[in-house]
């Protein structure tokens, strides 16, 4: 029992301010990208260019969340690739369903 009670007090490691600053910096980047998206929604004309920029910025944000917040980059490489590589399948789903949607549009209107 005595040995177990000793284990209850874990040693607290002091804060590493550089690490914490990096987290806040990432937060700043995410919020800044969102602000830019917001600005673009009201200043640019709707069209393919705007949509393309939105998607690029969104994937950029996703990269920050996965790499900095979820620490995926620090995991073992096989784990990293087994999460990232299957996402390639989505490329086909996008192509197939957009084609499908366009064809339905042609049939209806």
């Amino acid at each position, binding site marked *: 029992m005595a040995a177990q009670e000793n284990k209850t007090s874990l040693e607290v490691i002091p804060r590493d301010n550089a690490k914490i600053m990096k987290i806040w910096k990432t937060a700043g980047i995410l919020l800044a990208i969102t602000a830019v998206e917001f600005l673009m929604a009201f200043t640019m004309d709707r069209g393919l260019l705007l949509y393309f920029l939105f998607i690029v910025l969104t994937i950029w944000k996703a990269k920050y969340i996965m790499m900095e917040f979820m620490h995926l980059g620090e995991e073992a490489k096989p784990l990293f690739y087994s999460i990232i590589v299957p996402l390639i399948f989505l490329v086909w789903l996008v192509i197939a*369903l957009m084609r499908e949607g366009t064809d339905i549009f042609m049939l209806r209107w």
Partner: protein
Amino acid sequence: MSTTATAIGVSSKRGIWGGGNEPLKASYGKLMMWFFLLSDIFTFAAFLITYAAIRVSYPAYSGTMDAFQGSNEYWPIPELVFDAFPFFHGVHMPLVFVGLMTFILIMSSVTMVLAVEAGHRNDKDDVVKWMLWTLLGGITFLSCQAWEWSHFIHGSDNGAVLTYVNSLNQVVTETIYGANLVVNEYGPAAFAQLFFFITGFHGFHVTIGVVLLFLAFYQAAVGVYERRGHYEMIEKIGLYWHFVDLVWVFVFTFFYLI
């Protein structure tokens, strides 16, 4: 280095298939959380791509922004649909409220990383503090979404005059206020259906997340993780919480911006 390190000693009796070692140098719980999230990415991706497919199958609104009127003949412009803010009735504030919701969710993701970081340092006080902030962010986000849904369902003051097929299979023309699964004043029926389905499924994830956050907050506060000797549970729930934020980033772009 990675090839020489035998992190968890593989006993000669059991060998590498006998258990007791960590594949990919991640614990069982973390590994399974990652693969669960991968499957969830596919689910949400399927929803959002379906949204895009149904959207391109309808004509886009082609008139000027000022003259916009909701109709089931064309797909609406989201910033003209989502333009309300609590306590500012009738004021046109496009996307301000969802912008605020995005801000809240990103901030709660930040406090979650800070909790995970504190967990690595075995700092119980910091973990409890940041978990509480994260929990607060999650509950605030859910409350915002409840308001957003309620406003979407009740609709604007003027509504829109629509001709549609009602649930009794009759063609009717009447003024529609708000939205349900059959008809809505903003656009084609599929617009509201997808709104309810996608933001609802995301909100369901947030709700589960809030329950898990509370659990982790409580267990950290009463010292369960301290007795256990590590704060890995905070890390696993953190992964889930960041994923909820990640999905919202995509929902925000595809549903509200484009």
